[in-house]
């Protein structure tokens, strides 16, 4: 036993050395910012002629948050944006994946075309949509007028509720390809004999989808929802390029608000507090979904 313990201990020690570089990098790029932001959120930071001054501020930044009308609105809008965005992305991505998995859609051409939106850089994508939505020259207004669906130009990004939804559409367009590819991989992992068995059991196309495809995609769906929720909650580039939060702060979401408070209003502690709320939201989501990822437990164990 003695020797085996020694052996295990030395293996363990060696393991520490092997993992150390990765752990150190992770501590620098993940743990440090998280802790620093947490500390900042309890401070009042002033930019003065004599440099930065830090003063203990207690939980005031947080109590301010929840009494602040704009924060509450931004929180509500972020939740709305995330829920609708994730639902739309999952639905569209699943449809696209099903089409790509169909014998007629197997050509690599479609997969390459699919990837274009995803391959665009985020800001290029946002600029593209800015032109599409442009009230005077944008292709969207031109097309709709050409089709006779509308009579005069619509100011897509100038109307509060509409602007938020237009940003949502642009974000969905950008997000669908990656999720669709995830789902395509998931679909290809479902063995074809299960469909054969289902056909022999008398399942029609819809029943095959419900009883074979969806259960087989469960893990992929959960992963997609987790990733997409996190990406939707932290949306920033589209808002920055398209509206900068206007009109009348109607497109201010949490991440953008945090950025604006920190770098525009220079209220670093308050901005950090918002960022931490966002962090906690995403962290809870991740926990919920990881729980859901666990395989189904059987009701009974006997025999």
């Amino acid at each position, binding site marked *: 036993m003695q020797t085996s313990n020694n052996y295990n201990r030395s293996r363990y020690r060696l393991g520490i050395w092997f993992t150390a570089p990765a752990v150190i990098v992770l501590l620098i790029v993940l743990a440090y910012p998280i802790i620093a932001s947490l500390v900042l959120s309890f401070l009042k930071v002033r930019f003065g002629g004599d440099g930065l001054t830090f003063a203990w501020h207690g939980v005031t930044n947080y109590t301010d948050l929840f009494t602040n009308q704009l924060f509450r609105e931004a929180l509500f809008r972020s939740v709305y944006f995330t829920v609708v965005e994730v639902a739309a992305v999952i639905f569209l991505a699943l449809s696209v994946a099903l089409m790509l998995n169909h014998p007629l859609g197997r050509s690599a051409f479609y997969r390459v075309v699919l990837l274009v939106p995803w391959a665009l850089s985020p800001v290029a994508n946002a600029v593209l949509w800015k032109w599409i939505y442009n009230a005077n020259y944008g292709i969207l207004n031109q097309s709709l007028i050409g089709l006779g669906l509308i009579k005069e130009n619509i100011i897509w990004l100038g109307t509060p509720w509409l602007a938020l939804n237009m940003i949502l559409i642009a974000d969905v367009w950008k997000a669908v390809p990656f999720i669709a590819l995830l789902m395509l991989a998931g679909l290809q992992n479902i*063995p074809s*004999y*299960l469909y*054969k*068995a*289902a*056909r*022999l*059991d*008398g*399942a029609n196309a819809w*029943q095959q989808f419900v*009883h*074979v495809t969806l*259960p*087989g995609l*469960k893990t992929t769906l959960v992963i997609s929802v987790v990733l997409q929720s996190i990406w939707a909650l932290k949306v920033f580039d589209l808002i920055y390029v398209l509206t900068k939060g206007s009109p009348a702060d109607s497109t201010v979401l949490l991440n953008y608000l945090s950025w604006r408070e920190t770098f525009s209003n220079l209220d670093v502690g308050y901005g950090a507090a918002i960022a931490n709320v966002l962090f906690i939201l995403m962290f809870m989501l991740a926990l919920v979904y990881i729980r859901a990822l666990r395989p*189904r437990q*059987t*009701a*009974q*164990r*006997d*025999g």
Partner: protein
Amino acid sequence: MATLELINIHKKFGDFVAVEGVNLRVEEGEFVTLLGPSGCGKSTLLNMTAGLEDVTSGEIRINGKVVNQLGPFERDVAMVFQNYALYPHMTVEENIGFSLQLRKRPRTEIQDKVQKVASMLELEKFLHRLPRELSGGQQQRVAIGRAVIREPSIFLFDEPFSNLDAALRLKTRGEIKELHQRLGVTSIFVTHDQEEALSLSDRIAVLRLGRLEQFGTPEEVYSKPASKYVAKFIGTPQMDLFAGEFVEGGYQIGSVKIALPRSLKTANTPVDVGIRAEFVTLGDTGFDAAIRLVQPVGPFTYVTVDWDGGSATARVNGVSHLKPKETIKVDINPNGLLFFDRNSEKRLDLV
């Protein structure tokens, strides 16, 4: 219960011909095996019967009715797959009852039937388990249960034993045969294992490159193989085949002449002969040969001997104490000889 007729079935995948002109009639309650190596078209034939694959041309009739246009379910056939194809997220109970659930049968009816099937297959203890919590043999029984509960007119088995280990394979083989004896449902069984085919079937259809080579009882394909191909494929150990020639009073294989009755007609074409191990005896009479290989298999020992220009395997009862390189007397029973046309490879009936 039903009859199954395959009439002039062809199947092409692009340019590749998988099945070419197969005709087969399976009687009510019969157990028929489609036997052949991989690529012979046996699984394609089964899939076409199931309705999972379209036929390129030809007709499939179940109980006399053409079913070419019907889907798998309407054909009233049930299939047991090689890899079981159990729904991984459903319990054993849900897997077996799935087809009834799809047909919206009342809960109590489903439970009753599942219970009945489960007790027949000794699965009652596992009803609430998921497939991955079962052993291979148990999964196999669930797959069979899923087929049985539908009370189909034909059972289709697609190499159902190939994922099981040897011991379990034998056990399951017995279970399937018992099941067939009890239910008497017409069954089509696909395998590449000739021993499985011999032990299970009422009749065996031997396939070669998409064509039906022979369709007969196990007895027929074993002792009267239609061709060299069937002769080599069926039986353990493999039949010994010789490319010798007829000579006055017998058949010459290298330095050895096997005496044949004078009355035997010879053929106009060159003839090969085949002999099974049970017709080769070792002992006091016959010609001298050198022992090359001794393979005990329990009840028998297979002894391979060489002589100048030939080699054959003999079946010796029990454990043999013969050693390689020893010389022994070999006798070949002329009654066991099978004759094949060297060019067409078909068996010749020389009386």
